[in-house]
């Protein structure tokens, strides 16, 4: 029997979901939808009696207080001007609700064979045209990659249709194609393939391998006198993909540059922005080792425990624990299915923490996004892209869903906007983990069993690794739909809970996560110096019908691979069993140096580990950087700057992100000491976050980030320097020091096969080297995501090269924490650090649609002294509040301090330390975005001591905190250039993203 159960809110219940959709429909510009109601639909199929279906509905599916239900009552036709839209998942898409519903039905004591599906039903009332209805469906209600609208004629056919893809016992969906898999070994004809044919094989198979790589593979098999199996070819493609191997960063680069010398001006000490002599080129062998990893090697910090080797970078925390940090991107999937993309992105980086050493417990998450602006005109959207507002809402929900359900606080982040992200949004997700000192290293042993734990394997996520190593096109959503997935955070949570117990019982010797490339890359990596044999038919499957090759490369979420000594296997499996987590032996590590895969005793892959990990030909790519010359801005100098301050506060990059932040749990685990929202009303912007992972210890972790792609419009070298400075000064601003700070790099760039893209990437990497070296701050981990381009009608749209620097620092005593909001009327306000005429890429210029050429530079020698002095002053308790000056400069920073503290302020620009010769305008002093600057609030009784601490460094007493809630700024000539109520400033800052 088939039962369709509809659950809907009682009339007196406020339907928050429907209200949200109604608002979204209005946002689409459709005003004729009068009313929306929402119903959750469950479809039960199996040997159920009517009484049983009734009982399940009554006791389980409905909340009797607020909802009512009907069984098989939904086939009534729609009324006049009433549209019924039922959205269901596509076959094969994982729906976690099915599994848990089935579990609950079993708890009721109903053991009959049964299968559960869910759907959502929307009833929209109003005079809508067919086109409007289609718009509503496509823009709001479903994503065709994972869902479909159930057609009315399909409803009556539901029974046979459902049966086709239901496996009664487990109640999980089976895709209706290829239901039974019959083994057949597939080989690919390479030996006799011409170059043209080789490329065709690469393209058709979505291998994203170029000709020299395909030739190398051909040669290898030529030596073996046989053709590869599909599985072998896929394994090589996964291992050699940009995503897994970072070919660009590790390859050879022939770099040339053409700089506009006039723009570089004076070169700060310690920085060398000229990478070549004029007219010469520079050959770089392994950009990663020449820049990022070189800093770490040269600094050789004793507290760096494990860098660039493991799934995340590890540093010392205290005498018992170490901490690890990793930031990943999930850009391509988020462009296509924002919720699922961000969801699995955060899920993946959490597994990175869990897969570091012998497993670290995640203690905080970070997330940074770049989108096109949310009011992007619908009619200008490139074909095949989703609207940025929908992407943003989906991404935020995806992170919210996974992070909150995992019980990991999301403590730090940023959101930036630019229309060049319209085809490729950026989604950075980071996780910090903590682990005992003796659990930081892993070692796979010969004879250990290969155990896969966590979720089952399905056809989802196939080709994710190779897919993210190419550009997106209008057709990506069709051909790459397999790469899109939805996560199941509860599956990952129970896996995490169990793994940490198994770790503490020393039951396994190595662990890694199944991320991009699935088992192929996890087992391949763990066995790299040994060898492995795997029986692919032993891998637990979500549904039957997967070929051996699909099993091997599937990127189904929530899986990890363990290396388990044979004597521990029984205890390990018992432990996982208690927590309802599957753990299955799929093979063994060997000493053969070969990767051997079997499917029911058939050998389907036999590869030499050495070829797999060392056979990739190193290619030289061309990089050419030509610095753009922007028009020198002509901005009239207004006497009254109030309206500009208001407009800058309302810029999407700068305005409050409270709407997003509140949706993340930032209190779970009880460790948050300095929260992302601070101030008298808990709604001001914190510079960085402080968290205490061990609740009865004084030690804390500071996490911050620096990102600003706008400076890259002028020079990526200085962009990178500024990002590092920003991340570091935020650490200083919350009371930290440079003593033990480690940083992470995440480069998101366009297609590196294009010399201009690669040129700017090289400049950014060298900017990283010089700045990090000068500050004495090592990189411990990083990741790049290249090919962020969107091709439509033959025209390629690249994102601006964007670097995210994430910083982490250990704080000895969390009681030294400082927050950014003004505390007390009468206190003095200082600006510390020099201001320069550096408005290039600033938000002030952006108001006038200018970019400018004077990009903010970093003077690391002076900056280090400033950072050190402020650290000492804050540890002595001389500082009441401190805020870093970044986007929007002194104007924005001072305004934020005032309104977050619900106090007024009066400041005098003439007292700001600045380079007087080229810098004589109020607006420039107020809105310049020079680096290494802070606004500091000091109690008057501490002024003397504070000034002594900063002796010899640039600082100025610019004014004071006021009781009266006015924000007043005196210009260089002493006349008032800004006067406004702090309430108005706050409103301007809060309004844009108050959704």
């Amino acid at each position: 029997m088939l039962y369709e159960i509809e659950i809907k809110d009682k009339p007196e219940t406020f339907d928050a979901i429907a209200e949200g959709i109604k608002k979204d429909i209005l946002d689409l510009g459709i005003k004729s939808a009068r009313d929306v109601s929402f119903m959750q639909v469950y479809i039960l199929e199996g040997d159920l009696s009517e009484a049983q279906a009734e009982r399940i509905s009554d006791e389980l599916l409905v909340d009797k207080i607020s909802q009512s239900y009907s069984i098989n009552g939904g086939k009534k036709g729609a009324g006049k001007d009433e549209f019924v839209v039922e959205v269901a998942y596509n076959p094969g898409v994982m729906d976690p609700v099915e599994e848990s519903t089935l579990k609950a039905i079993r708890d009721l004591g109903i053991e009959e064979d049964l299968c559960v599906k869910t759907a959502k039903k929307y009833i929209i009332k109003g005079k809508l045209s067919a086109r409007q209805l289609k718009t509503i469906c496509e823009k709001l209600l479903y994503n065709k990659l994972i869902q479909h609208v159930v057609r009315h004629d399909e409803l009556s056919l539901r029974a046979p249709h459902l049966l086709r893809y239901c496996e009664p016992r487990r109640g999980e969906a089976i895709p209706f194609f290829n239901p039974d898999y019959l083994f057949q070994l597939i080989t690919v004809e390479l030996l006799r393939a011409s170059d043209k044919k080789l490329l065709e094989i690469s393209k058709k198979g979505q291998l994203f391998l170029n000709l020299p790589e395909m030739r190398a593979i051909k040669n290898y098999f030529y030596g073996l006198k046989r053709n590869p199996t599909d599985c072998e070819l896929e394994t090589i493609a996964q291992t050699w993909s940009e995503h897994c191997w970072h070919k660009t960063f590790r390859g050879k680069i022939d770099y040339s540059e053409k700089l506009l010398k006039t723009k570089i001006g004076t070169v700060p000490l310690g920085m060398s922005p000229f990478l070549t002599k004029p007219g010469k080129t520079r050959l770089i062998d392994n950009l990663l080792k020449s820049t990022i990893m070189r800093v770490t090697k040269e600094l050789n910090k004793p507290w760096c425990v494990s860098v660039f080797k493991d799934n995340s970078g590890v540093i010392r925390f205290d005498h018992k624990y170490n901490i690890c940090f990793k930031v990943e991107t999930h850009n391509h999937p988020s462009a296509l299915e924002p919720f699922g993309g961000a969801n699995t992105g955060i899920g993946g980086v959490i597994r990175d923490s869990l897969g570091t050493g012998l497993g670290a417990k995640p203690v905080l998450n970070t997330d940074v996004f770049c989108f096109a602006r949310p009011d992007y005109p619908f009619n200008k959207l490139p074909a095949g892209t989703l609207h940025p507002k929908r992407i943003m809402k989906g991404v935020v929900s995806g992170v919210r869903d996974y992070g909150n359900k995992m019980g990991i606080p999301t403590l730090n982040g940023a959101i930036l906007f630019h229309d060049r992200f319209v085809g490729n949004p950026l989604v950075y997700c980071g996780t910090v983990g903590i682990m005992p000192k003796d659990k930081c290293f892993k070692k796979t042993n010969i004879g250990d069993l290969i155990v896969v734990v966590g979720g089952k394997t399905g056809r989802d996520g196939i080709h994710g690794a190779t897919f993210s190593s190419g550009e997106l096109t209008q057709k990506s959503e069709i051909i790459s739909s397999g790469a899109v997935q939805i996560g199941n955070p509860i599956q990952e949570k129970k896996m995490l809970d169990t793994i940490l117990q198994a770790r503490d019982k020393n039951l396994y010797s190595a662990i890694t996560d199944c991320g991009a490339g699935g088992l192929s890359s996890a087992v391949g990596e763990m066995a790299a110096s040994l060898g492995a044999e795997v029986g692919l038919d032993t891998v637990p499957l979500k549904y039957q019908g997967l070929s051996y090759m699909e099993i091997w490369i599937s990127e189904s979420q929530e899986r990890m691979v363990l290396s388990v000594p044979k004597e521990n296997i029984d205890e390990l499996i018992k432990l996982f069993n208690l927590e309802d987590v599957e753990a299955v032996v799929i093979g063994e590590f060997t000493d053969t140096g070969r990767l051997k895969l079997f499917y029911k005793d058939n050998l389907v892959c036999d590869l030499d580990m050495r070829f797999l990990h060392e056979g990739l030909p190193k290619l030289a790519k061309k990089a050419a950087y030509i610095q753009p010359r922007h028009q020198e801005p002509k901005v009239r100098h207004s006497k009254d700057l109030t309206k500009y301050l208001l407009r800058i506060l309302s810029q999407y990059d700068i305005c409050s992100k409270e709407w997003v932040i509140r949706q993340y749990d930032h209190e779970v685990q009880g460790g948050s000491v300095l929260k992302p929202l601070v101030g008298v009303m808990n709604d001001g912007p914190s510079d960085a976050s402080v968290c205490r992972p061990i609740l009865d210890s004084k030690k804390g972790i500071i996490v911050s980030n620096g990102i600003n792609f706008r400076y890259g419009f002028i020079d990526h070298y200085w962009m990178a320097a500024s990002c590092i400075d920003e991340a570091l000064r935020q650490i200083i601003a919350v009371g930290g020091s440079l003593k033990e700070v480690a940083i992470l790099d995440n480069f998101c760039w366009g297609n590196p096969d294009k010399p201009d893209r690669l040129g700017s990437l090289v400049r950014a990497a060298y900017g990283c080297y010089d700045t990090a070296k000068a500050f004495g701050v090592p990189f411990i981990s990083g990741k790049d995501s290249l090919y962020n381009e969107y091709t439509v009608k033959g025209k390629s749209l690249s994102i601006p090269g964007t670097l995210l620097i994430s910083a982490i620092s250990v704080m000895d005593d969390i009681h030294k924490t400082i927050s950014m909001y003004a505390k007390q009327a009468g206190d003095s306000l200082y600006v510390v650090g020099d201001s320069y005429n550096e408005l290039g890429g600033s938000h002030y210029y952006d108001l006038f649609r200018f970019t400018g050429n004077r990009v903010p530079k970093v003077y690391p020698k002076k900056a280090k002294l400033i950072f050190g002095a402020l650290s000492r002053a804050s540890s002595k308790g001389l500082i009441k509040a401190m805020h870093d000056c970044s986007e929007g400069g002194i104007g924005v920073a001072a305004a934020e301090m005032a309104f977050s503290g619900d106090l007024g302020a009066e400041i005098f620009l003439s007292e700001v330390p600045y380079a007087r010769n080229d810098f004589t305008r109020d607006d420039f002093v107020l809105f310049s975005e020079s680096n290494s600057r802070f606004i500091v609030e000091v109690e008057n009784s501490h002024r003397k001591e504070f000034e002594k601490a900063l002796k010899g460094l640039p600082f100025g007493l610019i004014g004071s905190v006021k009781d009266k809630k006015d924000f007043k700024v005196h210009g260089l000539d002493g006349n008032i250039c800004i006067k406004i109520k702090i309430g108005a400033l706050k409103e301007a800052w809060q309004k844009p993203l108050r959704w």
Partner: protein
Amino acid sequence: MPKVKVCVLRTAGTNCDKETAFAFRKAGSEPESVHINSLIRAEKKLEDFQVLALPGGFSYGDDLGAGKILANELRCRLAEDVRRFIKDGKLVIGICNGFQILVKAGILPGTRPYRIGRCVPLHRNSELKQEASLIINDSGKFEDRWVYLKSPQNKCVWTKCLPEVIYLPVAHGEGKFVTGDKKVLARLKRNKQIVFQYCDEKGALSGYPHNPNGSIENIAGICDETGRILGLMPHPERHVYGEQHPRWAGERLRAAGDGLTIIRNGVEYAQKTLL
């Protein structure tokens, strides 16, 4: 002196168990993290504990509504144990997801099944009626924010010696307290079972965002007729230390958080009456 033993019950998706256990340890008891499967398989016994704590999280993903599946599991698989636990005069606290579970299992407000000395089998569904619910916030989304709470006059053993207005964080998407029928609400009031109400910093009942979810009568927490079973949406275990207060770095560092007092009340009551 023996310590009060606390069963911190967890299952797939529970995620506040560690800090809940920490708070109970800080309050002088001996918490133990117990997976529900250990109770179902009788590897552990509920009767060995004096306090049952249902921590926050998303049990089973909150599929079918927050707390619903674990509530169903308790009702169907552990009813006898829970019934005896309560009848024995022991204590229960449900925080956030735990509150949702207690309400959806019909254990709270639970006027009927648990009169002392008159036990009714819990597994008889007719006797275990869900009379209230916690539904999707009026804002339609999950929200994390700190809220002020006041305690009207009530019979709860967990709320002695609290300041007039306390400060705790909430973090939930389904926290709007509703009763199906007005009589239930009237009974809650009459029996002094309303334990916490959302208010402003001065203690006056106030709308959004002070009342973060649109709960009727600003209800944030209730207890049963005996006062020993407490359910609340705010998280006392997240305000145990002064440093967890959102403005400690700006105002002053308090010696302890308001949440610790709540937990300590429960532990001390159990110490006095059960050991």
